[in-house]
């Protein structure tokens, strides 16, 4: 019997450590499928962040490097500029990308580095145990804001796509979600575009993916999915914020 739906070659056949109901596993698979479909796996270098996805260097079946917290875009810049034939992606969470690594995020976009960033926004610090993230919603409790994020004390959630959309160098920005089958399909399309752009030398591409963290949200898997749809989406609307067709083009 032929196996029709097999594991993409871009994933190593190991057990992942992610919690039930987490979105990371889904996004990992999408990236792996895209690497296979574009035939780029052997020339791809991925960057694992600090955070829940730190072990992604064991999961993706391509060359991987794990670096300091938030510095993925700088590492990606170093790799891409010295090996322009490589396809380089940086996989980052919200604390990594939008808090400690914000400068690297903005400046790699401003330089329009020809790299791909996959940004998982689950509005919480996962690996360290549920602290407030730069993307935590107002009123959302976290272990460092137990009564909920208060704008007066903690400020407002950062909308990464909207922020980066101001930059000419940001060639492709899209926000999707993996909270539904439809969302997963759309996310894959966006991830593919973000890699395709790099293959074509179009410059900085980032996909922000709204994802579930039921463990640190104190919910079950189903409630987690609902939280993305009902609470996160109104604050973080899905859509394309910048596209290569808009302006620019070849770098």
């Amino acid at each position, binding site marked *: 019997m032929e196996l029709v739906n097999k594991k993409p070659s871009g994933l190593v056949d190991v057990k992942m450590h992610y919690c039930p109901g987490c979105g990371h596993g889904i996004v990992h698979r999408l990236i792996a499928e895209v690497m296979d479909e574009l035939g780029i796996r052997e020339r791809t270098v991925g960057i694992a962040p600090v955070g829940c996805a730190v072990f992604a260097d064991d999961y993706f079946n391509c060359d991987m490097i794990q670096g300091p917290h938030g510095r993925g875009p700088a590492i990606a810049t170093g790799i891409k500029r010295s090996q322009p*034939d490589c396809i380089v992606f940086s996989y980052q969470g919200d604390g990594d990308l939008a808090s400690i690594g914000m400068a690297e995020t903005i400046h790699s976009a401003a330089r329009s580095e020809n790299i791909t960033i996959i940004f998982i926004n689950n509005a919480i610090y996962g690996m360290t145990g549920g602290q407030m993230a730069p993307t935590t919603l107002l009123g959302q409790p976290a272990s460092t804001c137990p009564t909920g994020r208060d704008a007066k004390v903690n400020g407002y959630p950062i909308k990464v796509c909207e922020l980066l959309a101001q930059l000419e160098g940001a060639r492709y920005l899209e926000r999707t979600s993996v909270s539904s089958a439809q969302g997963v399909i759309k996310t894959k399309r966006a991830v593919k575009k973000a890699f395709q752009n790099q293959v074509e030398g179009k410059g900085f591409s980032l996909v922000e993916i709204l994802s579930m963290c039921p463990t640190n949200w104190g919910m079950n898997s189903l409630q987690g999915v609902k939280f993305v749809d009902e609470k996160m989406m109104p604050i973080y609307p899905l859509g394309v914020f910048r596209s290569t067709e808009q302006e620019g083009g070849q770098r």
Partner: protein
Amino acid sequence: MGEKILMKGNEALAEGAVLAGCRFFSGYPITPQNEVPEYMSWRLPEAGGTFIQAESEVSAINMLYGAAATGIRTMTSSSSPGISLKQEGISYCAGADLPIFFANVVRGGPGLGNIAASQGDYNQSVKGGGHGDYHTIVLAPNSVDEMGNFPKKCYELAEKYRMPAMILADGILGQMMEPVEFKFQPVDPANLKKPDWSLGNAAGRKKRIVRSYDLREGELEKMNWARAKKFQEIEDREVQFEEKNINDAQLVLVAYGTSSRIAAAAMKMARDKGIKVGLFRPITLWPFPKKQLAKLAQRVKNFLVVEMSQGQFVDDVRLAIGGTAQVDLYARPAGIPSGEEVFAVVEKLYQSIKPAKAVKKVEKVKPAKKAKSPKKAKPTRKLKPVKKKTVKIKTAKKATRKGGRR
């Protein structure tokens, strides 16, 4: 090669790196090292390499981390506060066993300090620098010529041992102009062997991972022990130093970098007056020439350390000598001494050690332990453990090299 060119230290440093095969530089402006990125910004593209002005030192070192992981020769440079910012990234490079090369053109500190020369970053450089258990190979040039010729040495050592190597310079060495002769054939990066750990182009091989972590029980300790073994090897094999007028010296000046030039000037003044002064200059600050200094201290009983910091370098000298000789210190933290100034100290000290000659005779009768009697009690306070150390030095004798590697 073979031609002398008048260059600024910072430019010689940059050119030396390019000639040694560097094809990637990322950095951030800071005085007094700005000539390095400025030079690289046109020179590297000319040589087919990449120059990036990063948004911060933090970003610059991480660009380097990525570029070095692809197996090419890379460089970054900065000055004190900027090097502090780079230390996390340097620690990652050490943890991931990546050979990187960087230079610290030291300025006054702490904090923003000033923009003049200083040696205040000695401890940071030789004791690891960032977090965790590691060392960086540290070369300390004392001329523009060495600024130009040391990058190649750094690359070779960094690659041989898969670890960061650095040049510890200062504002004077960076800013002054002197003739430089690049004493090596320019390295064509195409002729360098691609290391078997480098990332990119995985066709036909298994995936590779560059990382500095290992959460498996006991594995990190194993890794650190392996590194400790490597560090020991480096301490045994790679020490470089320079000695001048040592043979008949009664007093030996110990200094590195710019201080060693000043000390050399003071030595000349002393010799002109018939004062028997020598100079011992470590070229590698890590590995530190411990055995060589200890050996020297078997004969010479008076040392004067000259450093442009509060007394950081002197600690390593005293550790090496282990209380078997008197080690005095002339320190100028964020100040630059003149030759005359150091000579005045030498002259005074030399007078005070004359009675030590009498002690020396006693020393011949009795074993060395009673020889270190002079006034200053500080470095020789604890005599008992010293005996043991003397024994240790003797066992280490075998490995002691006769001359410097320079």
